[in-house]
């Protein structure tokens, strides 16, 4: 088999980055992450890349391959024309740490602002009975492996379009999983509207397209949440009533989201 030609971003936040080229011997079934491991083992031992499971289960190995967001452990070299050079770059929405590794800590900070699972206090757990079909939707949201590829492609985050922070598709998925849990009691709508910035999403569906877990982020999570939020604001009486019923569970309504710093990888060369 011919060699694959990889063009890999190298650099850190303090310097101008550059692309380095490597010829990698190809084996059948090889994925981009295998090629990077070959480079580490034979040509550039300090090449920085995150990975753990190698099976699309942990969401560590996110990067942009030929300008498209991918999990590198399930991106097959055979999907590319090996005559052409394959360009591998870090995710652009997040500040660069080194090479293919970016600082995704902002996501973990956003997560902290979401009101966690809030079960009822007056129903004993023995009586929690849910049918499989009632939880299938919630299980879909919970398939998320936190690869942050959806955050990476969402134009609101990627282009730093808002002064006010936007929680991004990943955390709308998480919020949906909580809001639609059969027995969760909290009401996160004010939070979603005011702190989470759900209104910034204009339903471009880019997030859904890249989700490796095939979660229908826009249709199944964001749109239903938007409807719930709209309901609350156009049907204030119903909302107040539901809020009363929900007891005094905290809603996390006034949580402040951190600001996502823009410092994406810079090179003087345009990726081709």
């Amino acid at each position, binding site marked *: 088999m011919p060699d694959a030609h990889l063009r890999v971003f190298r650099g850190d936040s303090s310097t101008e980055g550059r692309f380095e080229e490597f010829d990698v011997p190809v084996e*059948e079934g090889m994925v981009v992450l295998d090629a990077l491991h070959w480079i580490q083992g034979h040509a550039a031992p*300090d090449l920085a890349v995150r990975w753990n499971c190698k099976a699309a289960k942990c969401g560590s190995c996110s990067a942009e391959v030929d300008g498209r967001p991918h999990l590198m452990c399930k991106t097959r070299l055979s999907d590319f024309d090996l005559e052409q050079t394959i360009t591998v770059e870090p995710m652009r929405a997040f500040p660069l740490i080194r090479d293919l590794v970016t600082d995704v800590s902002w996501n973990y900070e956003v997560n902290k602002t979401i009101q966690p699972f809030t079960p009822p206090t007056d129903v004993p757990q023995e009586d929690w009975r849910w049918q*499989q079909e009632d939880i299938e939707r919630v299980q879909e949201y919970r*398939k998320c492996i936190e690869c942050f590829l959806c955050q990476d492609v969402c134009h609101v985050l990627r282009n730093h379009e808002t002064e006010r922070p936007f929680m991004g598709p990943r955390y709308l998925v998480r919020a949906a999983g909580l809001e639609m849990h059969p027995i969760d009691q909290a009401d996160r709508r004010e939070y979603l509207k005011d702190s989470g910035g759900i209104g910034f999403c204009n339903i471009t569906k880019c997030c859904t397209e890249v989700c490796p877990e095939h979660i229908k982020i826009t249709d199944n999570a964001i749109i239903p949440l938007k409807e719930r939020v709209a309901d609350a604001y156009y049907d204030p009486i119903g909302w107040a009533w539901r809020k009363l019923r929900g007891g005094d569970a905290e809603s996390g309504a006034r949580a402040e989201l951190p600001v996502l710093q823009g410092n994406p990888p810079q090179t003087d060369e345009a990726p081709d």
Partner: protein
Amino acid sequence: MPDLTNLETHAHDVLVIGAGGAGLRAAIEAKAFGADVGLVCKSLLGKAHTVMAEGGVAAALGHVAPEDTWQVHFRDTMVGGKYLGNPRMAELHAKEAPDRVRELEAWGAVFDRTPDGRILQRPFGGHSYSRLAHVGDRTGLEMIRTLQDRAVALGIQVYMECTITQLISGADGVRGGFGYWRTTGRPVAFAAKAIVLATGGTGRAYEVTSNSWEYSGDGQALAYEAGAELIDMEFVQFHPTGMVWPPGVRGLLVTEAVRGEGGILRNAKGERFMWKYLPDERRAEYAETDEEAARWVTALSQGHETDARRPPELSTRDNVARAIYTEVKEGRGTQHGGVFLDISYLPAETVRRKLPSMYEQFKELADVDITRGPMEVGPTTHYAMGGIRVGAETGATTVPGLFAAGEVAAGLHGANRLGGNSLSDLLVFGARAGAAAARQASSKDAQPYLDPVQLQGANGALAAPLERPEGEDPYAIQRDLQEMMQRLVGIFRVEADLDEAIRQLAELRRRWQVVKATGGRAYNPGWNLVFELGNSLTVSEAIARSARQRTESRGAHSRLDYPASDDATWNGLNSVVTRAADGTMSVSATPLPQMSDELRSLLGGEH
């Protein structure tokens, strides 16, 4: 070498090293006891091995089989472990697992449901009843996310992408840890009144493994260096079904749930070979014909009761792994050196719903549609039954102030772990270790003082590979180690190979002592590997020496030169590895803890 005058130092009542299921559960419990907790992990939060677990978590909830009780779970665990497990641990585990699983549900986990709306349980090898609570085949993801969210909600301080390279001790036991930030390479120290190690397993020492780069046995090696005892190190679980093709995915796990849902193993000649390999004393528990096994699968998929017995594929892992290895060795393997595992005779829709991530994994990585044809599988290094010796009630190691839980600790699984018993182990003993560590911390007033000489030593060791002008390439040493362990200390072992392995390990260590890392400190995997490789060498030596000492075959440890179990000599004896005063590794054996009469009667007087 960065000087240590401004060393970044954090202090906590309890320091938990490792943020998989065991570490998170320990941190949550310690926090509940009022301790101030710090939690350190090498990867990002939520990426630990636990996230990859597929099949389920074992607990005698009795939702599918009301006859299931803790007593049966206890017995299955002891039998599966060939009576080498710590009986008290097996008892606590079986008794407490149901509460620990229900607790996850109370914290937001959404398990698959039975028709009457409760947590669904699936069958697995070696478990007498349908016992594994699960979420499709992504149970570990559900578990780690639930625990992670809980830990975050409780405000536990997490230090991500931070590697601990050495424990700092004093006359009174451990006092803290030294390590570095992977993102910057800068050193950092933690002072703590009690420490819980929850760093997982050792599989990276082998070439074919389901384990990630994290599994270099850091916790085992850190504890060993600090004077703790390791036990049962010869028992390495080779999971029977890893992927064998294409080469890049060799070793990736194919969950046992495939067999739990009815998957059939066949050799290249089309023979269902597992019939041949059922051990005589257990044969009565398995179906006798294809027809009976098929009835069992139908009953399972339709959720009704049956008098049919389980298929032979659900024998224990050690047995199935040896069977596959033997079939291939004797020339009945597939083109790529595996055997076939077939679930495609079930309706495609059932396969996709029950095994969604297996379906995806084969489709995306191997171009195989498992609803239409068989998978090719072979054994893969999967789990360490051995590890740090701990007390059953508290997870206390033999070093004061140091606790351990999860895969890094040993005792529950004996000579062979049953599938699903790890996730429950993490929960039960994670919680116990967290509570004990918090109690220990509350008995100390002042934060311990970290000895600057030890910190300097750790700092120097960290810097050395970058400062050497030239030396060995860490990746090359790792490749040689993995190839050697796979060849000489694999599924079947003989004395001559083990002697050779011990000799080669000494040589590999000599090369490791002059290893050279290139590049800087910030996010440098080659440099980071040096430390991990040192730990892999330590645990590999412990595995090889323990395997050499045990002159019998038992559970996952199979000796070609001693093919039978030798109850007269070895029954009830665990191997122990310690660091001798001169720094060399010493191996001995110790009797199992005593079993109460109640537990003994549960084993039916068998032992």
